[in-house]
């Protein structure tokens, strides 16, 4: 296990480096300019823009800028945003709590729906429950989140006037009042994201469970006289969960990356909206940092999924 982990980590290093080179080059080659807005404002003379480009080192060749970035990164310096002039790591950290709360909650919601519904559907395939669950799942993942989001806003905010559709990270309230407001503003974004995710996962859990539930050892377990509950939970689910774990582990980086579209619709100040704002304003250091962290997380969770396999299925060995 130990040598395996070490080897995997060593392999990851060049990939991370490669990713950073690709990201940096693509961003440097992409059109756009963080100071374009200034050029449109006649009250800011062009020399100001030229001076800023010089001060921020934007006129240097790409390779120089890359090595400067890499060197700073090795020292733990993530650079600063051209637009807000705040350190990038501070910007990202300020968005983490909200992202974790909203996206994390939606993933938990998705799991809480997908696991029981998927398993129950598989235990009684083609029953009424299964048919209804399948239909809803198809509807769920065919509707994109920007559509369901707007639909919910139209219904609950505009027609019924029950829920606010602007998410505020720091509510000016305390105690119970804070919880009530927090829950009211979180319902819609969490529901939109969670239900969309749950729809896909339900189908996945159902088919993974179906694969296992007809195997001979399950029949054996039943003929031993075990209760149905024990058969499903102890014998079926444990084996069925192996592919599901991969799937869930690989979507985990999303929690960090946020959900760009949904965050934009509900104005959730998460990392997704930070990324989209930075892209729109050509704020390269922020785009670079967020995408780089995402890439690293994908690598990390891949490794985690592989390690979890061994725990779920001791037959898998690490070499």
């Amino acid at each position, binding site marked *: 296990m130990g040598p395996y982990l070490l080897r995997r980590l060593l392999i990851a290093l060049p990939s991370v480096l490669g990713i950073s080179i690709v990201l940096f080059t693509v961003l440097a080659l992409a*059109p*756009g*300019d963080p*100071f*374009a*807005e*200034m*050029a*449109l*404002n*006649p*009250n*800011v*003379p*062009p*020399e*100001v*823009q*030229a*001076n*800023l480009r010089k*001060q*921020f080192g934007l006129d240097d060749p790409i390779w120089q800028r890359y090595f400067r970035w890499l060197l700073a990164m090795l020292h733990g310096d993530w650079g*600063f*945003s051209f*637009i*807000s*002039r*705040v350190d990038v790591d501070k*910007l990202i950290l*300020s*968005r983490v709590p909200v992202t974790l709360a909203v996206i994390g909650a939606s993933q938990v919601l998705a799991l809480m729906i997908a696991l029981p519904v998927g398993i129950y559907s598989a235990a009684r395939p083609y029953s009424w429950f299964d048919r209804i669950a399948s239909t809803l799942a198809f509807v769920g993942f065919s509707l994109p989140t920007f559509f369901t989001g707007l639909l919910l*806003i139209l219904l609950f*905010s*505009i027609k019924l*006037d029950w829920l*606010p*559709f*602007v998410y*505020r*990270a*720091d509510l*000016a309230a305390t105690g119970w009042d804070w919880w009530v407001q927090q829950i009211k503003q979180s319902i819609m974004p969490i529901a939109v994201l969670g239900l969309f995710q749950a729809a896909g996962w339900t189908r996945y859990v159902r088919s993974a469970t179906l694969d296992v539930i007809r195997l001979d050892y399950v029949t054996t377990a039943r003929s031993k006289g075990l209760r149905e509950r024990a058969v499903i939970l102890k014998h079926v689910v444990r084996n069925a969960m192996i592919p599901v774990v991969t799937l869930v582990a690989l979507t985990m980086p999303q929690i960090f990356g946020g959900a760009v579209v949904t965050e*934009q*619709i509900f*104005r959730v*100040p998460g990392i997704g*909206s*930070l990324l989209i*704002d930075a892209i*729109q*304003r*050509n704020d390269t250091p922020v785009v670079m940092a967020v995408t780089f962290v995402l890439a690293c997380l994908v690598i990390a969770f891949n490794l985690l999924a592989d390690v979890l396999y061994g725990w779920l299925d001791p037959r898998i060995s690490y070499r």
Partner: protein
Amino acid sequence: MQEQVLRALIDDVRAGRLSRRDFIGRMAALGLAAPLAASLLGGSDVARAQAAAAYKPSRRGGGGALKLLFWQGPTLLNPHFGTGSKDLAGSHLFCEPLARYDADANLVPVLAAEIPSRANGGIAEDGRSTTWRLKKGVKWHDGKPFTADDVVFNWAYAIDPATAAVSIGSYHGIKAATRLDAETVRFEFDQPTPRWARAATLQLIPKHLFEAYGGAKAREAPGNLRPVGTGPYRFVDFKPGDIVRGELNPSYHAPNRPFFDTVELKGGGDAASAARAVLQTGEYDFGWNLQVEDDVLRRMEAASRGRVVASPSGDVEIIQFNMADPWNELDGERSHPKSRHPILADRAVREALALLLDRKSVQGFVYGRAGVATANVLNNPSRLNSPNIKDEFSVERANALLEGAGWKRGGDGIREKDGKKLRLVFQTSINSVRQKVQSIYKQACARAGVELELKGVTAAVFFSSDVGNPDTYGKFQADLQMYAVGGRDPDPSDFMQWFVSWQAASKTNKWLGQNRGRWKSDEYDAVFEASERELDPVKRAALLIRMNDLVCNDHAVIPIVYRPSVNGYARNLIAPVSGWDGALSGIADWYHEG
């Protein structure tokens, strides 16, 4: 009206022989609107009633929370770093300038005791300096007094290139800022300067907190993220790009202000849903810059929870002609300022193309309240609006002009002359409104035998200064292009510089030159230089109007609409927003009625 007569009348008012009311009455009889007449007086040193907004609340606070929604959130709070109006919005809650512009583009004192003028000795006779007297008893939020040293410090802080301040541009031409005593500051200019108020509308930061963070260390100042100012609200919390919160400043220097106990400025999302949150659900009190189609806004207003208000500003949407040749290289450069456009160099063609723009339809079907049809490049403030240019749309006259200039229709209906087809490429940024205007214009041109090829460039490329990209508006490798010009300063001299020959965009200035049409007029250059030296506001206004007429009569550009800033208000919110200053520059005067 003859300028001499006008000046004589103004002198009469100044000498007390004619009352202001009579003057305005006479001007009205001559067809000049009252605000215009008043501003003529204002610019001429006649003492005027202090333009104070009617502010009703009789005590400070008690207004509850004020919730503002900006679809582009504030990213920074140091006023010296703000690149656009949205960046200044956040700092307007906390930091204040010496003076600000009200909705009619008049200067209103904020931290100054009064606006300098010739009469009070604030403006030197030779135009080389201004003296500002500061308001007494103003305190920073941390209790330290606001003094002349702070004003001087702001100048020194901004002009250091290592600070990388955007405000350096506004301090341009100020040779020195000197403290005369604790409450008086003098700005000295390199040369006689008619635009003496420019730096005074910048918000100020406290010397005692920023002194240690000038130059290269500017980014490390804690005050960048936790601003301390003199403004009506004190800082509570800031998350860049997301939210700014403030609370009432109990020791604010203006009486009975502010009205609201807390203020919250939320950013993010898009303009349409911001409009919805203000007009339809009433979640927010104020929605900034609602760039949404007008009929959508009208449908939302039907909920009668809020209303839309357009405040005049200097922005104008134009179609610009390329006077240089975009299709052939000269000295290895397309659109070289020295080259001549094979078709558009002919004034008759430009005039015909100007006649083909149906501005009324553009306003009626595309812009609504967000754009007012105009044939002038200078529209606001109204004192600079030229009466000499007519808005005309006539396909017949355009046809006749082209026929007269020798452009005959070919077999395919497209005009040609000397083997050249009247085929032009018309580019703009990708934006649904602009694409609609492009197609309206294309149809009208087709009726006159002019074929337009429409080109859309993504805004990030079109407006960038990327020297490697051929599709930027600076390189202008097309025949016509459309974008918004103008700006927020009521004094349009920066904007008028966009037509002088030495600003022609070219390889030598990395296409950062602001005369992107490469239009050249010796007379214009001369009038511009004269206006930069002219200290008399009335004569200067006449020069600016002359420049507008030169640009419009020679058809360097086709003005389309001028674009007021359009904001959404909750039903009971009284908020004097000026299109000439940051949207929140007058936040101290905002209140709820009823």
